[in-house]
């Protein structure tokens, strides 16, 4: 049975230091939920509070409405996959997987049956009698996952499970994890600092910084309409450009960058209050090369051909360097040193107030 997890004004302290101040969050039943943030943001702390390895100094945490603050870790019916996998090195694959079932006082045949089933789900049947030291990283990962889900937990917790794998395997494993999660349908809380991984696997993501949740939303919402400047810069790459908002006589808003380039932003029209200086978040793919000699003037200081795309570093006339991604063209190669003009895709970019805390272009912030 899967559960919904709810935090009501949760507080975590280490001695006098408050690591998480009054955090509230609801994770829906059956959801693949990711805690994303830089190291030290409190994501692992929060995960370990769900597991019961960290105490809770204030507020309440519930599973389906039942308070869990004081329940011992072993009694929470949680499956956990650790960053180091934490596979028992002295037990073979099936013994590792059976470990949790044995504490549940099942008869031998039943344990064997369930181990068999889960081995099939994670596709490591052929390694059932191997010792962990004879398994590759990816195989160990699957054992850890199998051991965590075979006990039919209410919640599956995963603490940076892919960080020890090499790049290609990481992509394969995250697909496998996503697929297995969908198959068994357990509420899953996943911790990572890798934003691409988070977007690939999650139904919803909470971006954290300094113990505070910055933004909760679907991967699409977080990438396209980040709640604040931190989220915009942490998830995906972006250029932050200073600009000013101007309105014409009809009240239509546009951004003015430098003194030569102006682009109207229809989504700002609904905002009544006066806006002055702003910060734009323009992702590299939200620049387009201007066909005529209008827009932002700049010089290409580096051009990197990466196959599908060409990455440009462009020095704008007022001195700032921006990253630009263009589709690679067959003939029209942009060379280093070339002078170009850039325009921004007005409907895609995000406009933040000068402090970076508010997104005028939408989003939940």
């Amino acid at each position, binding site marked *: 049975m899967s559960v919904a997890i709810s935090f009501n004004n949760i507080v975590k302290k280490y001695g006098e230091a408050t690591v998480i101040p009054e955090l509230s969050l609801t994770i829906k039943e059956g959801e693949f939920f990711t805690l994303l943030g830089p190291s030290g943001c409190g994501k692992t702390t929060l995960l370990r509070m769900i*597991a019961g390895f*960290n105490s809770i100094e204030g507020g309440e945490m519930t599973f389906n409405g039942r308070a869990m603050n004081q329940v011992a870790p*072993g009694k929470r019916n949680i499956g*956990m996959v650790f960053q180091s996998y934490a596979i028992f090195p*002295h037990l073979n694959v099936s013994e590792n997987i059976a*470990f949790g079932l044995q504490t549940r006082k099942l008869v031998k045949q039943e344990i064997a049956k369930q181990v068999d089933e889960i081995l099939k789900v994670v596709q490591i049947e052929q390694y059932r009698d191997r010792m962990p030291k004879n398994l590759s990283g990816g195989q160990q990962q699957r054992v850890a996952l199998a*051991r965590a889900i075979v006990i039919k937990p209410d919640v599956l917790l995963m603490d940076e499970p892919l960080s020890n794998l090499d790049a290609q395997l990481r992509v394969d494993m995250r697909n496998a994890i996503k697929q297995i999660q969908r198959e068994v349908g357990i509420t899953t809380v996943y911790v990572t600092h890798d934003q691409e991984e988070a977007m690939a696997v999650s139904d919803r993501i909470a971006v954290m910084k300094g113990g505070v949740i910055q933004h909760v939303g679907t991967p699409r919402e977080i990438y396209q309409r980040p709640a604040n400047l931190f989220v915009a810069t942490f998830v995906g790459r972006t250029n932050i450009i200073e600009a000013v908002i101007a309105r014409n006589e009809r009240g239509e808003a546009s951004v003015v960058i430098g003194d030569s380039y102006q682009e109207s932003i229809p989504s700002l029209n609904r905002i009544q209050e006066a806006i002055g200086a702003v910060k734009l978040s323009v992702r590299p793919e939200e620049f387009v090369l201007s066909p005529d000699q209008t827009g932002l003037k700049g010089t290409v200081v580096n051009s990197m051909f990466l196959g599908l795309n060409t990455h440009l570093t462009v020095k704008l006339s007022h001195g700032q360097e921006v990253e630009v991604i263009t589709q690679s063209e067959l003939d029209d190669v942009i060379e280093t040193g070339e002078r170009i003009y850039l325009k921004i895709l007005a409907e895609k970019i995000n406009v933040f107030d000068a402090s970076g805390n508010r997104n005028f272009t939408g989003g939940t912030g």
Partner: protein
Amino acid sequence: MMNARMKRFDIWSMITAAIFVGYIVFLALPLFMLLIKSFFDGTTGEFSLAYFTKFFSKAYYMNAVWNSIKVTVSVTILAIVVAGPLAYVMSTIKIKGSTTIRILILISSMSAPFIGAYAWILLLGRSGIITKFLSQVFGIEMPDIYGFSGILLVLTLQLSPLIFMYVSGALKNVDHSLLEAAESMNVTGLRKMWKVLVPLITPTLLAGGLLVFMRAFADFGTPMLIGEGYRTVPVLIFNEFISEVGGDDGFAAAISVIVVLFATTVFLLQKYVANRKSYSMSALNPIEPKKIKGVANIAAHVYVYLFTIVAMMPQVYVAYTSFQKTSGKIFVPGYSLDSYRAAFSKVGDSILNTFLLASITIVIITLSASLIAYVTVKRKGAVANVLDTFTMLPYIVPGSILGIALLVTFNKQPLMLSGTAAILIAAFVIRRLPYTIRSSAAVLHQVSDSIEEAAISLGSSPMRTFFKVTMPMMISGVIAGAIISWISVITELSTSIILYTGSTRTMTVAVYTEVVRGNYGVAAALSTLLTVATVLSLLLFFKLTGKKEVSM
């Protein structure tokens, strides 16, 4: 990160409390009693500083202190000077038979030092075989081996292997590329050693030096046998405590207190210096021994072989004499097993005692060391820190002093233990626990906390987790440590000589008394049996751990 579990009162809190009580009763309380005894007059029971005044005002006692310091400092320096280069040579130059040599050096360090003392008397003493040979054939008179020089010889040979093992271990962690980096900056030869290698192994030298210092300082058997009137502090304590005429518990206690304070100071000083100079190193490309040619190669081989031969000589010679025919107390030409027959019939009980006591000790050590290692490594906190300090104390408190402390504490009801096997076992356990704790803890440090968390989150109880998950993972460290503890129990003298009675006499005590009586044949047979037991235990250690070294 374990706050949540620390707060809950569980089975581990009870185990910690039990271990704590054990240390309080068998270590803290006895040392406290010793302190009390030293400050109160033995006959009137009044507070008095008389013992301390007596100690510091008489040249007789200050002389012993001076002797002890002379011996200890000289042995420590000499051991570093001899064994440091030895370790360097063995680590950088290919020596033929180096594996065997390492094992032999290890074995030589594992025997009881006083056996070395008595063997050197047989070799270099007044009627020693080498002395006689040299004077009869070449007319050379050997310098006197009794007194300071003899103690120096025996203890240096006995304790150099510790430095050798420490430095070898440290050199293994020095990355070869560090030396190559130095060379690339044109720092070569001796300058390279002095500028790069010596600073890197300094913390290790200090740690090894401390161990040598403490052992040399506490050693009782060697000055007793070969010192011939050259009194050191342990001898003084023993005489004051044991001697039939004029033995004085209170005064022995006072000297003990001074010794413990002195040892503590040295210990803290070493820790302070070592902490400021420690580096964490792990070598991707360890230094490999290289084949060299010419004079240097010959010199290296001569140095290594010579040290090994001299270090092994006592044990080999003792073993040889154990097969010699005896007539009464003297060796006569021809070979026989008489000494062994005599050993079994005269002091057979001591053999049985040794192995029985050591077996019980090891069972207790194995269980408590694994629990203590677990508590101190995995359940950090104020209590665990105090426990950690307790486990270090036996490094500072010499064996004879612990023996005396236990005796003065447990000599009356309700804790009447003196004269029983229990008091010996308690002393052995307290003294030899650290080896097993350290090797168990070393393994536990490698085990990530998440392994246990995995078991707990899967619903496993604390005890099931410990025995099913943690214990199997640390068992290699526990066994390795237990074997070293075992060897040190069967070869230890300084505590048992204080605590034994007729029915609890151990082999080392028997060897000592037989040597004192001049029954060299029986002593040799017993010593050889001890050596065989030690070597067999070491072989078992090598087999189980797959290692060819021991961490002390």
